[in-house]
């Protein structure tokens, strides 16, 4: 095939604003590109458009009110953030959760990983011009959101779970929907996969685009699928296991050249692995007492409303929780989980008050987005757009 050279600007650089509101950014952040014709010479990112000062707000909130802040970090997979936060608090307070809670959490976390990845992979398709796959697979995000809805009543900003477990047991509708997901999802997913992963046009658009070596990716603090696409098999679920991830059988897919195609393929394979983890967790649940859904930590969790109206103890704990009567220990803990985009870390420093003295969110997006200029220098403009969507930059997580 004969390739034509893209036109250059004959040495006259052009400044092009990609964002803050632009369909290609899929969120509010700006890229100021310096172009020479069709070729990206350099780019500078401006972030902070939806900065909401979560770390500051958290210093004035009791622990249970911070869960809602974590929802809004990576809002494509809120339950993952919620679970990560609850686990951090449990580490702080030395709370052990029952095994069934761990299994339920794993199911929820892997479901949200799938919903997070499927948006990213289908959006890569959209940015390459293949809208059909996106329209086709996107219904499954809707169906996963219905599972969340059955569990906690909310869809996107879920505020799911409580310290020590869940606010209520999973209702039968949730299990029906999970069962439906397990029976039907893979067929649609494989169809979607066959539309893109061996599609000549898609491969030409994504292979060798926005590459980064494993070494550079590590230097830039990459984690998650983007790091694994560059060939480094770091996964928090394996390196620093939590929620009993050590007992599941799953593979960590890795890429070769850290290109947009590798990032797409790694995410696709992770969806298959997550699916298998959910199946394993559901199978393990059969041996557990179906009535267990939390551990008893009354001082930190609001009691059920009916109990508040009828039981003295519950009323006392209701007030104690709302008024922050229970003092936290003086500790510094760090907990991290494998979120949709990589290592989502919570550093929590408490000095004995009723709110954290310092809470730090390690937001994977914010850290790896720095590498974008290096990844697109010398690329075509359309390649820069695909690189951006394959990195899965989520503005909420970027700005906190």
């Amino acid at each position, binding site marked *: 095939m004969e390739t034509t050279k893209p036109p250059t600007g004959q040495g006259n650089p052009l400044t092009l604003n990609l964002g803050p509101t632009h369909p290609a950014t899929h969120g509010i952040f700006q890229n100021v590109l310096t172009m020479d014709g069709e070729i990206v010479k350099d780019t500078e990112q401006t*972030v*902070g458009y939806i*900065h909401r*000062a979560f*770390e*500051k*707000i958290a*210093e*004035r909130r009791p622990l249970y009110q911070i869960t809602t802040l974590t929802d809004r970090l990576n809002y494509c997979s809120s339950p993952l953030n919620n679970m990560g936060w609850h686990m951090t608090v449990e*580490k702080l307070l030395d709370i052990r959760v029952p095994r069934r809670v761990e299994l339920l959490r794993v199911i929820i976390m892997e479901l949200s990983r799938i919903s997070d990845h499927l948006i990213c992979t289908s959006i890569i398709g959209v940015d390459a011009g293949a809208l059909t796959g996106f329209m086709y697979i996107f219904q499954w995000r809707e169906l996963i959101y219905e599972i969340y809805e059955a569990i906690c009543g909310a869809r996107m900003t879920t505020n799911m779970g409580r310290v020590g477990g869940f606010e209520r047991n999973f209702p039968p509708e949730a299990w029906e929907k999970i069962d439906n997901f397990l029976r039907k999802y893979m067929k649609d997913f494989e169809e979607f996969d066959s539309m893109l992963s061996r599609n000549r046009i898609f491969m030409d658009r994504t292979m060798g685009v926005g590459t980064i070596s494993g070494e*550079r990716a*590590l*230097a*830039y*603090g990459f984690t998650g699928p983007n790091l694994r696409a560059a060939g*480094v098999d*770091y996964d928090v679920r394996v*390196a*620093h296991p939590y929620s009993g991830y050590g007992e599941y059988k799953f593979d960590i897919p890795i890429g070769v050249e850290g290109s947009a195609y590798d990032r797409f393929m790694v995410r696709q394979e992770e969806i298959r692995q997550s699916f298998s983890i959910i199946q394993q967790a559901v199978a393990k649940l059969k041996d557990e007492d179906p009535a267990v859904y939390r551990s008893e930590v009354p001082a930190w969790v609001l009691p059920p409303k009916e109990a508040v109206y009828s039981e003295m103890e519950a009323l006392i704990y209701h007030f104690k929780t709302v008024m922050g009567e229970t003092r936290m220990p003086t*500790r*510094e*803990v*760090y907990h*991290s989980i494998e979120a949709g985009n990589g*290592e989502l*870390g919570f*550093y929590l*420093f408490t000095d004995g*008050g*009723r*709110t954290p003295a*310092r809470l*730090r969110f*390690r937001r994977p997006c*914010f*850290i790896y*987005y*720095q*590498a974008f200029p290096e990844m697109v220098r010398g690329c075509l403009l359309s390649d820069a757009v695909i690189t951006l969507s394959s990195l899965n930059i989520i503005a909420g997580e970027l*700005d*906190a």
Partner: protein
Amino acid sequence: MDEALLAELGRVLGDRMLSHESDDVPTVCIRASDLYDTVEALYNDETLAYRFLTDLFGMHYPAEGGKSEELGLQVLLCNMRTSTRLRLSCRFSIDSPEVASLTPLFPAANWLERETYDFFGIRFKGHPNLKRILNIESMSVFPMRKDFPLEDQSREDKDDRMFGR
């Protein structure tokens, strides 16, 4: 802290290690002036090999119980081969909040240091582009310091005595 790890840290850091604790992540307290050398030594050592910068962020410790007001910096490192973490912690006076930049060692530190500067006013010597990142550049305060109020203090319709920290 694990004896073997402590011995290794003692070998590499010597008297740069002021104190240590290991309630959760093993933590070493150092002087702010030693930060760059310490991180570089931990990076280059073949056994410890803390070569992944996980996180870097600021702290603010208000004056309390006779102690003067201080800022702090926490650096979270990871050795990916052994899956071990290490936290470096340093504190320094708020009057001279300056430490050496880690950006020459880790490109990832670039934005983390800009964020720390933005919110705590910690200046990083040798940083290539130390300007605000999440807040507007014309801002004149460092909002994560404890003395910066969360809300507009001129409001009279809210009483935070009951629910405030």
